[in-house]
């Protein structure tokens, strides 16, 4: 068992990481917003952690907190990404469809170029020598961090789906104007969905910085945006498991195909083309397509006569 973990630990953690990043795109998508901003928040979260864990300015704090520093980095990353998500989201989410996607692409690029040029982020070289979280000796031990995060996120997503807020998201995704007319404020919920995605990506970034030991501008690129989009579309965009399955699979395939060396990325590209053609609902969608959801059960205490409203102005 330990041999397996040692050999494949890194890969498994990366697969879980990919699933989490897929979920960070899934949340805005639930409200109908195609946001390609996740890599930007992921990179930001990672830089926050990297700086807090290596920069001399924080050495006093590091000595005081010891291992407690690591969860602090997650918190700070979450807060910063949430704030930035709010700041970017409020204006950007007035846009629809491809315009929003393009605005988020621009955001990621701007962040990338800025991070390439600031001293505190280490410029083009980035930051290296990031200490291992909690003194982990092996890469697979990071499953203790990413695993619970994934489970919590899935739980969060499922609860959200069944709640009033989840319904608001779906309404906006289906028909923003009709949702507005039926009393659902679109901008508020679009921004909320966007911020949830941003915070998640930020936390994943903060956890990933120690995992990878180094952090640089390559973590937040347009390529990553597209990779994450592929996770969600190929895995399935209408179900919380879709991004997880898509992320895991599309991360594992290039590894499994390692022996193909230079042909690896070509195959990856072909997989994208073929999957978009033959799996329009994604893998999970295709698997689910066969089963129809059970009809909703009527609660026992439905009033026989609908009362006249007491509400209204």
């Amino acid at each position, binding site marked *: 068992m330990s041999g397996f973990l040692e050999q494949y630990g890194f890969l498994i953690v990366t697969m879980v990481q990919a699933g989490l990043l897929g979920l960070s795109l899934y949340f805005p998508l639930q409200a109908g917003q195609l946001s390609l901003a996740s890599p930007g928040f992921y990179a930001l979260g990672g830089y926050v952690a990297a700086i807090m864990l290596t920069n001399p300015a924080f050495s006093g704090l590091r000595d005081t907190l010891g291992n407690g520093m690591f969860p602090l980095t997650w918190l700070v990353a979450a807060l910063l990404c949430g704030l930035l998500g709010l700041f970017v989201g409020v204006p950007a989410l007035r846009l629809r469809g491809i315009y929003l996607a393009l605005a988020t692409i621009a955001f990621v690029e701007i962040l990338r170029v800025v991070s390439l040029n600031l001293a505190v982020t280490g410029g083009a070289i980035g930051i290296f020598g990031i200490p291992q979280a909690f003194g982990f000796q092996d890469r697979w031990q990071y499953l203790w961090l990413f695993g619970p995060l994934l489970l919590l996120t899935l739980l969060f997503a499922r609860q959200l789906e069944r*709640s*009033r807020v989840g319904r*608001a998201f779906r*309404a906006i995704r289906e028909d923003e104007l009709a949702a507005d*007319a039926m009393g659902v404020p679109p901008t508020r919920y679009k921004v909320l969905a966007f911020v949830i995605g941003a915070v998640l990506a930020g936390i994943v970034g903060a956890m990933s910085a120690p995992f990878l030991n180094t952090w640089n501008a390559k973590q937040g690129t347009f390529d990553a945006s597209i990779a994450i989009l592929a996770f969600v579309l190929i895995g399935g965009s209408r179900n919380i498991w879709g991004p997880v399955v898509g992320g895991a699979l599309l991360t594992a395939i290039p590894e499994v195909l390692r022996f193909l060396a230079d042909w690896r990325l070509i195959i990856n590209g072909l997989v994208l083309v073929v999957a978009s053609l033959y799996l329009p609902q994604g893998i999970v969608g295709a698997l689910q397509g066969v089963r129809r959801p059970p009809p*909703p059960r009527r609660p026992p205490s439905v009033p026989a006569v609908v009362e006249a*409203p007491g*509400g209204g102005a």
Partner: protein
Amino acid sequence: MTAVSTERATVLEARGLTRRFGGLVAVNDVSFDVREGEIFGLIGPNGAGKTTLFNLMTGLTPPSSGTLTYRGHNVTGLAPHRIAALGISRTFQNIRLFRALSALENVKIAQHVRTGAGLWAGVFGTARAEERRVEERAWALLDLVGLADRAGELAANFSYGDQRRLEIARALATEPRVLLLDEPAAGMNTAEKGQLTAFIREVHDRFDLTVLVIEHHVPLVMNLCDRVAVLNFGQLIAVGDPGAVQRDPKVIEAYLGGE
């Protein structure tokens, strides 16, 4: 049939509502009052600006000029969700149900503005009582329109007539005091139109609503409405009792050569 009382309060007041799109004036200086509890019809030839007027009144399009007052509040240019919160709800000419969602979902969503569970309440499951009420109310509304046995079916799969009923159920879920129906009988045959007329009346009586109806089918409007307004080329050319309006020479001229 309730008698139209001149003592009834004015619930909606439109003054000089105008909407321009580039060079085109879709709604031109329209002013009228709607009284509490009445069924008010809006008729006119195609392209007269009726739907645009509804859009102005429900916040989907801001007016170029003019005001709309609801129970004394100035609601001109408010966002649609604010207007829904104040108690005005509507259906759409082209039916805008949430097609990929079930009938039950459609009706549950529209209760948003009368409920309050936020993100954390939803995630931690502390809003169970509210959720139960939302669920029950949604089923009750589906019962009302006779679609409860198909609560789980996707809205897109319903027949045209059933979709219209579902849209009305959804509009009712926002607990409105004023209901705007945009061509609710379009595409229906005579029998269905009769059923719909009865249904609108039932809903009006049961929920104590004020109803505005855009309709093309003049006999339906005459049968159903307490008062009627006639729009032509964006302008209001007549308002009043259905019989009188029908005999108004300007109205007759507007419809000449039309349907």
